């Protein structure tokens, strides 16, 4: 951690980068937020630990328009998104100095709370230098200990791997966190009756308050103006006026990012209502893998996206499972 | 009476699974038929009886029982009309309408004459063992 901060200082002071895009301390230890650091002094606020889940790739769209080079800290999974944005000409590679940083799994406050912990005031054990086995949670009701693993975000259990797809230099160690299959949940839903599928999604989606957090955080949802905000389809919706609008919004959003979504899981992480939005994207990813061959967006910039591609003997819609 | 006549021709179509209107009257069935000489209604004429809703005559004719069910006509019909299946269907109607009077195995030896081809015996099972 210290070496990372020294390196960042060095970069800023040498003038080889004009700013650093990273995370700064939040009000609590468990809510750091993305931030620009324009000088070595500002780095005193810098933090990188198990709670720095935010994917910084999307911020590089704006940062690409700023003067000079931005040093951006990307976790292994974030680099997929960055690659995808390069492919779509949304970020300028030369404007970014990518420091690929290690990751030992990112934490979810909801997952900690789900273990019966209430009134959290502070959490220790999330430091990137630590062994990341246990978290010591201070609560209004005393200190509690929970397992690091059980407190991770869902996406870290199905981690794509700790290899960076793109970087200028690498720093900090990673630890493997993969211990589940990412399509298990999709399969469970697929095997329900259509009645039960409908009930499940209606229950989940009826929680949606159309805050647009999922859209705003998604690196693939980078449209300058979303169709749901424009008059292009007579489809502008600021709020859900009927139950269908929720599913319409999420289905169309998932369709728009199909073949581009890297499965970074940010949508589910930021949803204030805890809707498992990644289940939509994963369904498309699973279908694409099954029907058109395994594809991972952001892995290879040169590869054609499955939805802008075809083969002469693709399967027919009626043959879908 | 009119209604029952019609329903019999509908039955022939249903049992045989063929559409007599597809026939273009090329006569390939009659050209192929090994029993042609012995038939009073010729294979290519079967369809007209069904179209004209005269299954009555078809049911009474000898051809029904002369047909060897060799299915050469079914195989070769260019229009997929399958005259052999029409004969077969007409037979079934006759047999069904006879009620329980199926051929009893004991009666068979009497019915066999010396010139009777082997094939007829085999196809007899098709006709009667329903």
């Amino acid at each position: 951690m210290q070496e990372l901060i020294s390196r960042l200082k060095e970069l800023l002071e040498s003038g080889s980068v004009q700013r650093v895009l990273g995370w700064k301390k939040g009000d609590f230890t468990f809510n750091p937020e993305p931030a620009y650091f324009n000088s070595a002094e500002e780095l005193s606020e810098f933090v990188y630990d198990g709670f720095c889940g935010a994917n910084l790739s999307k911020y590089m769209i704006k940062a690409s328009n700023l003067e000079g080079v931005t040093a951006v800290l990307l976790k292994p999974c974030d680099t997929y998104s960055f690659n995808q944005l390069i492919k779509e000409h949304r970020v300028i590679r030369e404007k970014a100095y990518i420091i690929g940083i290690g990751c030992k799994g990112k934490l979810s406050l909801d997952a900690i709370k789900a273990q019966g912990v209430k009134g959290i005031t502070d959490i220790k054990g999330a430091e990137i230098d630590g062994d990341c086995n246990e978290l010591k949670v201070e609560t209004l009701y005393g200190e509690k200990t929970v397992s690091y693993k059980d407190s991770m975000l869902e996406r870290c259990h199905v981690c794509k791997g700790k290899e960076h797809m793109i970087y200028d230099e690498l720093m900090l160690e990673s630890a493997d966190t993969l211990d589940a299959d990412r399509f298990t949940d999709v399969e469970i839903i697929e095997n329900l009756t259509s009645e039960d599928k409908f009930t499940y999604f209606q229950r989940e989606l009826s929680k949606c308050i159309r805050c647009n957090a999922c859209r705003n955080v998604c690196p693939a949802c980078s449209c300058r103006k979303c169709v749901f905000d424009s008059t292009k389809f007579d489809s502008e919706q600021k709020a859900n006026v009927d139950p269908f609008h929720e599913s319409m919004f999420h289905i169309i959003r998932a369709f728009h990012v199909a073949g581009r979504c890297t499965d970074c899981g940010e949508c589910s992480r930021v949803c204030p209502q805890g809707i498992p939005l990644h289940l939509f994207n994963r369904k498309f990813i699973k279908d694409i893998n099954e029907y058109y061959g395994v594809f991972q967006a952001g892995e290879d910039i040169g590869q054609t996206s499955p939805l802008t591609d075809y083969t002469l003997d693709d399967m027919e819609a009626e043959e879908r499972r | 009476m009119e209604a029952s006549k019609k329903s019999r021709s509908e039955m022939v179509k249903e049992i045989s699974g063929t559409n007599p209107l597809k026939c273009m009257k090329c006569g390939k069935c009659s050209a192929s038929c090994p029993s042609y000489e012995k038939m009073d209604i010729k294979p290519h004429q079967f369809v007209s009886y069904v179209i004209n809703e005269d299954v009555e005559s078809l049911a009474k004719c000898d051809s029904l029982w002369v047909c060897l069910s060799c299915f050469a006509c079914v195989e070769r019909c260019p229009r997929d009309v399958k005259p052999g299946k029409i004969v077969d269907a007409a037979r079934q109607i006759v047999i069904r309408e006879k009620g329980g009077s199926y051929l009893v195995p004991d009666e068979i030896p009497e019915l066999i004459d010396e010139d009777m081809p082997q094939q007829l015996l085999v196809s007899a099972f098709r006709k009667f063992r329903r």
Partner: protein
Amino acid sequence: MHGIGVFVCHCGSNIAATVDVKKVVEMAKLEPGVVHAEDYQYMCSEAGQEKIAQAIKEKNLSGIVVCSCSPRMHEATFRKCAEKAGLNPYMVEIANLREQCSWIHKDIEEGTEKAVILTRAAIAKVNLNTSLEAGESGVIKRALVIGGGIAGIQTALDIADAGYEVDIVEKTPSIGGKMAQLDKTFPTLDCSACILTPKMVDAAAHEKINLYTYSEVEKVSGFVGDFTVEIRKKARYVNMDKCTGCGVCMEKCPSKKAKSEFNSGLSNRPAIYTPFAQAIPNVPVIDPTQCIKLKTGKCGVCEKFCQAGAIDYKQKDEVITQKYGAIVVATGFEVIKLDNYDEYAYSQSKDVITSLELERIMNAAGPTKGHLERLSDGKPPKNIVFIQCVGSRCAENKGKSYCSKICCMYTAKHAMLIRDKYPDVNVTVFYIDVRTPGKNFDEFYRRAVEEYGVNYVKGQVGKVAPQADGSLLVHGVDLIDGKQLKISADMVVLAAAIEPNPTVRNIATMLTASIDTNNFLTEAHPKLRPVESPTAGVFLSGVCQGPKDIPETVSQAGAAAIKVVGLLAKDKLMTNPCTAKADELLCNGCSACANVCPYGAISYEDKLINDHGIRKTHRVAVVNSALCQGCGACTVACPSGVMDLQGFSNRQIIAEVDAICR
């Protein structure tokens, strides 16, 4: 001022019988934007169009809906009518009340209800229509003819005579096609070669015609007026400029085991060959699958004997790229494979032959030097049976559903020629129907019966059984006499069905020309535009469009030529203005649209965009409207809905959806 006019056509009783047109007018008047609605007997008539024009002028209409037949029929008519009256032609929408309503529904209440909804959808759409201006594109003054048979030759000659450059691409080593294989032609019995070869020579000699023989079309891109075509000239291994056509190489070639394609496989040819004596160009090709030198490296006989030094074993295929304004398909036909008709013993006996094979046997240049003889033992036949409709007029699972059209006539010709030359030979023709529409055709058939004593028997043959003595027992029936016939023949000739040349499928795909279930190319309109493909700039000549005899083929070839000439004579073509357009204010520049564009019509530019007072440079999509054909693939690839299709915009289609589901 905004005002929509609705015009409901009775189409005589075609629409009015199942749709209450008055009710449609009533209901249309209630729709938003509609200021005028009326009905008329025939909207497409001059009087009907006059009504529309008048209403446009008097009520100052900003858009019109015509409720009539399919837009594929009269959209162009009503657009022209609107334009004459001063309304932008793209402010016209058609509600298809005939093909998609009155003709398929019987109940007037049901029909009317649907008609009202279809009208409502068209009104909803036209409310959002915008004026569009057709652009212009140039015309390359050169035509391509694919196929060098009589159809292709005639089309090329007619186009060339009008003064335009034409290239013929023929996949075999010589032009001439099937007609070159024929002996005599009906109904006048002229020698086929005598009337064809002068045309072949004309084509070769014409300064505007360029022949690519032994060549195939490999790739087609572009659009009407501006096609780019890649043609593969297969290696001949003979230098065309040096060869004098002396023919010594063919004589000396030691490999003589290949079947002669020209003689329908009835004789052999050398590895270096011209298909036939009058071949054009008279330059042989080396068949690499047969040539000993090319296969083993040893031999080289032809090279040794060639005085001109024209043999070149190292020649390679050459791909040339050429631009054309129009393309004519004249790929012709093949005789079907007879595997499914083994009751006629084609595979079992050499003496059961197809009519095309008989044509070669009768020909003086053929395998038997024109002597009628059995292929099994060379003996002259005494009894010949012709069987008609082999594989034609069948149920779909049994063969071709169509009538091959030429068989009745050529069979009469064959029968007549045989009886004329060999009066002691008995000729029996088994037919289902004798079809002889055509000038002097029935007379010709009657002559075969009356003057030449050909025995016509109505009834299809059941089977042909080869006998131990080499004869063929034909099991037939005379349906008129009601007798089964068993005729002992020594030769049986099958009038096998014809089918489009199998390569046409691939060619149609390259041209994006539509094809029917039998692989015949579809015409733009079965009655009114029979020589044009629905794909603009693609024309049809000969049997590739449907079975035809020579006179018909030649007339169609000429008709296709005049259509091509009509196109090439224009300097500019109006382009379809219904093209894609990006809203550059909001474009992400993500390239999704360009990735799916089949025409490469989308490029990207960095543009300075003034977005609510903030000036920024953005990468935005730009559509080249001359290249865009308006498919709309890009509009769906675009996640932000920035790419839209003019004339079929997102909002227009959504409006139609809403109107239908209301």
